[in-house]
């Protein structure tokens, strides 16, 4: 009787917890050193523009959180600014993702379309995304639609390029299986081609998320009346140093949270891929 080989994820939970805490303990010193280094450096430099961490932290809490009764947890400033930023980011990135994947499939599966669009795709990929800001303004003015367009148009290229690669580089054995099994075109697309291309597509989505974040910041720093970027640049123009840093900190946290969420989703959806790769090693 053949034995069943368990997937390598089935480790006892206790061991995993222990390893996580040990891992955390190892990583902590670096943060402490960095924080202490900042404090010391700030006091030593005594520049008005490099405040100590404690002051920044204090201002951060005051800016973005509230303990007044009746409101949820975040301050009004947070709601008025963080939400628009997140909204633009989400909308722009979603459009970039959908357009990138759909176009990517079309380009990869239709040879003539692929050849015709090839120079355009290369050009699009070569344009540094922030350089599209003036273009977006010229097309849409200075409002929210400009920002969403900028993010969508700027962040779609990594998705597009990676989708094309993912569809083109599909394992020929998979294609042979689909033909031999006479799977209908619709199911072949959604249940075979799309999953087979998904590892590369996800890599493209990850890159494009980073680009989207950069673009929303750039747009808000340049031309906005709301948003975290606006808060930052407004504070900077008024020489409100602590306010500037407080905004930067929030933006940094946004980047970390957004990335973390994406990694969580990717880890779950792409589990079959990481495990399969591990199994063949």
């Amino acid at each position, binding site marked *: 009787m053949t034995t069943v080989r368990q997937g390598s994820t089935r480790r006892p939970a206790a061991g995993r917890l222990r390893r996580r805490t040990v*891992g*955390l303990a*190892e*990583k*902590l*010193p*670096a*943060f402490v050193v*960095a924080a202490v280094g900042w404090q010391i450096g700030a006091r030593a430099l005594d*520049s008005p*523009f*490099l405040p100590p961490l404690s002051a920044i932290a204090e201002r951060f809490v005051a800016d973005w959180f509230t303990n007044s009764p009746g409101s949820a947890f975040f301050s009004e400033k947070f709601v008025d600014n963080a939400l628009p930023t997140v909204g633009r980011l989400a909308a722009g990135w979603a459009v970039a993702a959908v357009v990138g994947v759909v176009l990517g499939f079309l380009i990869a599966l239709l*040879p*003539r379309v692929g*050849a*015709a*669009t*090839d*120079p*355009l795709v*290369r*050009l699009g990929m*070569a*344009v*540094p*995304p*922030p*350089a*599209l*800001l*003036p*273009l977006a*303004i*010229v*097309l849409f003015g200075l409002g929210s639609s400009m920002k969403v367009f900028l993010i969508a148009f700027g962040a779609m290229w990594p998705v597009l390029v990676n989708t094309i690669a993912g569809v083109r580089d599909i394992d020929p054995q998979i294609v042979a299986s689909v033909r031999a099994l006479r799977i209908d075109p619709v199911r072949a697309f959604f249940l075979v081609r799309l999953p087979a291309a998904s590892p590369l597509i996800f890599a493209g989505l990850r890159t494009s998320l*980073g680009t989207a*974040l*950069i673009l929303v*910041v*750039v747009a808000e*720093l*340049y031309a906005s009346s709301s948003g975290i*970027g606006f808060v*930052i*640049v407004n*504070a*900077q123009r008024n*020489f409100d*140093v602590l306010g*500037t*840093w407080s*905004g*930067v900190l929030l*933006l*940094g946290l946004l*980047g*970390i949270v*957004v*990335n973390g969420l994406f990694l969580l989703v990717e880890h779950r959806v792409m589990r079959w891929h990481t495990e399969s790769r591990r199994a063949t090693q």
Partner: protein
Amino acid sequence: MTRQARLAWGMVGVLAVLVVMQLAVSTDLVSEQSVPTATAMLAGVGELVLSSGFLAALADTLWSTVIAFVAAGLAGTVLGVVIGASDRLYRSVSGLIDLLRPIPSVALLPVVILLFGIGVDMKVLLATYAAFWPVLVNTIYGVRDVDRVMVATARGFAWGRMQVMRKVMLPAALPFVATGLRVSSAVALVVVLTAELLAAENGVGTVIRAYQVAGRADFVYAGIVVVAVVGLVLNVVVSMGERRLVHWAPQHRG
């Protein structure tokens, strides 16, 4: 599809876009303020490329990019090797790296402006910071990814730590370092451009910003095309260097 056919279709694609641009404006479908005619855009490209003012701005941008790239490359490679070679150091620092990496460096632009004003220093510093991360991360990965068997074999020759590093680890890590450098060159250019677009006084980004404010869509589009080409050329040059570096590395094996 034959190579000629691909090229032909490629030209058809580009031509189609230009024709659409031209028609959309001449039939008043879109205003000239938003989309220039293809002819206007191409004329703009020609004018920019021949204008000494623009070329001076381009030189400024490229020079800043190069400085940032070199500084980031040195710092990233050295630190990357140090961190990658020590397992303990890596484990202790990796959390901090993972935390700082996803933060868009552009977000630091306002504080950098507060600290350093809007001169060249500001651009170069921010770009160096941004370009540092890809080099660091790729170098660490390259050094750590070195075949443990090779290292063990080398240690078995009773080689000292430095020798092992020089003869085995560094050559094997070279391809990864090269990749990191290529990515960082693109990042440096992007950040320099961004700083120029948003605040700086000199450089290509500043020029394009000026045209946008002045409502000259043709030059805005033209500027973007030029910037894309510059990016491509930079990519090609760095890739050639990368290939040279990688080609050299395997010869040091064995």
